[in-house]
């Protein structure tokens, strides 16, 4: 999810494009008082809320101490760095009172009164309960070791570095805590659905990636009550396209069962597909640590979201191209490349070897209207990360150095067409665009050890 926020922040600045003078409002804050030592139950609850909120993803530098900040967000006009949220008094959040902490998390206002960049998903966190915020605060103050780490200053030059225009953004697009909580408390027939709504819309901030955004970068819908655009698939996140989490048959979760979703969020791999791109981090840091009850709540809630795109015909397996490949006929566009470079793991019948190598036939990512994720993974490869329940990681090699734009376009078009997928073909220009837009990796991600 960190990738998303880099992009979102970049786009935000691009669209606001402000260059005005002014002073940020300084709000005096009472000095934080050391809270009494918390019961271990409260600490555990706070840690759990931190997992559900995936704080660690953004507030940890690659290879750094968890929560000590420093993850860079490269923007066109400079780089910002995620702050240190360990309870160190000088460099972290040690001086925050619980009220100041709550305001930062839910309203996007720093202790000194300055606005946070909306890379922080406070429009979602706004609906977090006081009890969860309390537990989270106690966890950060007492369960996390203070780390003295002065995060690098933003390299954005003045006047773009001024934060006060963000106040306007907050006022226009971020809900107040009262409104957000009221909305989250809307009535659900099933308490499990209510819990699911809270987790998905609140701490889980799924919409940050999976909901579309307006030109001014706010999510067009923050809850399922705001219409079917909520979680209908998001914009590019480092070249990955978050899929719809709604009921679309082909590109959403229409064919996934509640148990499929639960297992996916736990192990990152099910018979229907494997987590990759930004979702690897979301599963690794976050969802795999949630209880089965909460995962079922999330899954049941997602399964209750009707499709946004109501035009999709149900996907059914079509063996035509698989039969041709099996007979040695590689005349279809991209078929030869597919057999040479993909079929060992994904099979000529497109069914893969789940849950080790995912299927491509019927895979929502493959059929997405925007082919970027598929092009991206063919170019760079990716890693299915180990989880607690599934300790094996699997690496897909990248083909950027071996296949031309034309060949990638051919094979991606083949994959999008075969096995009943019938999604639109892609062009070499599409591939060139994605190839060009791939972010430069900052530090190699550690390779799996299996």
């Amino acid at each position: 999810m960190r990738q998303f926020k880099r992009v979102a922040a970049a786009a935000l600045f691009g669209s606001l494009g402000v260059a005005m003078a002014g002073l940020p409002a300084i709000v005096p804050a009472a000095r934080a008082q050391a809270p009494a030592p918390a019961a271990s139950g409260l600490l555990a609850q706070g840690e759990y809320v931190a997992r559900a909120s995936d704080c660690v993803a953004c507030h940890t530098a690659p290879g750094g101490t968890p929560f000590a900040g420093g993850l860079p967000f490269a923007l066109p006009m400079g780089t910002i760095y995620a702050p240190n949220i360990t309870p160190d008094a000088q460099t972290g959040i040690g001086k925050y009172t619980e009220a100041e902490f709550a305001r930062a998390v839910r309203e996007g206002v720093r202790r000194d009164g300055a606005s946070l960049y909306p890379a922080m998903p406070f429009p979602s966190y706004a609906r977090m309960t006081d009890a969860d915020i309390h537990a989270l605060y106690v966890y950060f103050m007492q369960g996390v070791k203070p780390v003295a780490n002065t995060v690098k200053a933003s390299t954005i030059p003045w006047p773009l570095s001024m934060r006060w225009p963000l106040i306007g953004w907050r006022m226009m697009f971020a809900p107040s805590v009262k409104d957000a909580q009221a909305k989250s408390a809307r009535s659900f027939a099933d308490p499990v659905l209510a819990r699911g709504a809270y987790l998905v819309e609140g701490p889980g901030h799924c919409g940050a990636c999976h909901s579309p955004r307006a030109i001014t970068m706010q999510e067009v819908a923050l809850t399922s009550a705001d219409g079917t655009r909520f979680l209908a698939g998001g914009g590019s996140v480092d070249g990955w396209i978050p899929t719809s989490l709604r009921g679309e048959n082909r590109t959403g979760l229409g064919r996934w069962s509640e148990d499929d979703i639960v297992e996916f969020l736990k192990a990152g791999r099910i018979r229907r597909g494997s987590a990759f791109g930004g979702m690897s981090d979301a599963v690794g840091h976050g969802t795999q640590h949630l209880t089965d009850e909460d995962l079922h709540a999330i899954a049941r809630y997602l399964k209750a979201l009707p499709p946004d795109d109501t035009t999709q015909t149900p996907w059914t397996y079509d063996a035509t191209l698989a039969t041709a490949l099996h007979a040695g006929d590689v005349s279809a566009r991209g078929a030869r490349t597919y057999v040479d470079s993909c079929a060992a793991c994904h099979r000529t019948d497109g069914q893969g070897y789940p849950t080790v190598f995912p299927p491509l036939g019927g895979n929502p990512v493959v059929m997405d209207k925007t082919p970027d994720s598929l092009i991206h993974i063919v170019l760079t490869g990716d890693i299915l990360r180990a989880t607690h329940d599934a300790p094996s990681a699997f690496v897909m090699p990248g083909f950027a150095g071996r296949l031309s734009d034309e060949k990638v376009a051919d094979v991606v078009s083949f994959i999008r067409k075969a096995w009943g997928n019938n999604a639109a073909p892609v062009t070499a220009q599409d591939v060139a665009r994605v190839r060009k837009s791939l972010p430069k990796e900052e530090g190699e991600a550690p390779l799996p050890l299996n």
Partner: protein
Amino acid sequence: MASIKMKSVDAVVIGGGWAGSILAKELTEAGQSVVMLERGPDRSTASEGAYPGSIDELEGNFRHKIFQNLSKTSVTIRNTPDQTALPYRQMAAFLPGEGVGGAGLHWSGVHFRMPPDDLIMRTKVKEKYGEKFIPEGMNLQDYGVTYDDLEPFFDKAEKVFGTSGEAYTVNGQVVGKGNFFAPSRSDNFPLPALKDVYGANMFRKAAEEVGFHPYAMPAANASAQYTNPYGVQMGPCNFCGYCSGYACYMYSKASPNVNILPALRNDPKFELRAEAHVLRVELDSTKTKATGVTYLDRKGNEVFQPADLVIVSAFQFHNVHLMLLSGIGKPYDPVANEGVVGRNFVYQNVTTTTAWFDKSVYTNQFIGTGGGGVAFDDFNSENFDHGPLGFIGGSPVWVNQAGIKGIAAAKIGGPPGTPHWGSAWKKAMVDTYQHSVRMDAHGTNMAYRDVYLDLDPTWKDAYGMPMLRMTFDWKDNDIRMNRYVVSQIAKVTKAMGARDVHLGQRQPGEHFDTRFYQTTHLAGGAVMGDDPKTSALNRYLQSWDVSNVFVIGANAFPQGTGYNPTGMVAALAYWSAHHIRTTYLKNPGPLVQL
């Protein structure tokens, strides 16, 4: 170079291969804190097995990327005790591994259970043929364990390795077309057998036709995707043939790296230290208790790691070397015929037969699986009457097409007598590579009084330690066994319709020649048994002399076997671990009282 003393741990495990990984897993499950020391680098599929760079025959099998660095340590070799041994400086006859995964990363994947009669070989031969049948100078021994003792551990190892195969009998009931001679199993293989490649299928039909009993070789190359009891996963084998000498990019060849370590690395009780070269096991003043091990870390610091329990689980001859360097057990003296460490050093007796077919028959030798194929056991173990034949031992025979790649194929060239270069060589390659089938007699090598391991009096390794010396030669009993079994192969190649055949047979009086690859199946040298006069380890692989040292590996085999050793090593590791967990840890001390 500093001298460092580490915090004491419950157990230190020497070697990051199969045996070490199994023991480390079992001991951490029992709540022990474990440090595993591996002298080579850490290795993984993501680095060594990264496709497509990893499928490089030159780098893998000719420059030996994941094998032992012979510029640092090696062995010296001679044929007979009256010769001066010389160092083994280039990889050829055998290929020991190095790095996390050990030989378990570069192996092929042939995964057998030991034949029951092989475990009680001395008893069986005496009973069937009389004691006089045993030739002068042959040290024939029993293991001190039976197949029934080991069966649960064979079963466990197969489930951890994701072994593909077809059973013959499960709990005494015939269940399939597996090996007619194999002992009954408590459960089927975890995965179905790999498919026959074409040449193996021809061999299967022909062997059946002449009255032998062909079966699918059990292979730790997964025939389908698989999740083992530790929750770790394997991909399915795609028959690419890059098994032996490579990390499998499909995650389908079992290795400690893929099958065990993912479940260990995150365990806070476990620590793996790579590039830690163990120099010796330290003993207290009584020489009956180990206090820990001394090793060199990657910076060259000498480090002492204290531990209550020491597991010596490096490769076969490194285990023997470490025992000799550490003073654990009495070194073997072939003249006085006393001592046990270095005694009963054995190898494997393998020869390859080639059959050539008409050009209309395509055998596609470039594909294959390291462990799969078709075998028959009619001349292995005690499956046939040795009485009239006058030798001890036997060989399974198989087509184990592991994928003959370009360079290897070019080196093999055409039939014997073909030039190794020029147009005649080219023509022979074109005529034969696609149209031949190779089959092995994969036989036993017995233990002999004048075949042994000891410390070399002349040569030292890069760390200043005396090198291990091998004194090894082929013996008449084993040459005659090989020639007999290979003569039986001729019946099969005839039934296959071969247009020409080269029977690979040992020649009478043939000497061991280190220049040509044979196999890395070295065994013995610190063997298990019931008698401390003829074994270095008791039946639980515990040193008779230093009871908090267990030595796990093929070093424990009293004599050679017709099968590949890994299945037996893994079962012995689980067997030993089981008794450490259930008995030793509760009351440390000798598990066998004399």
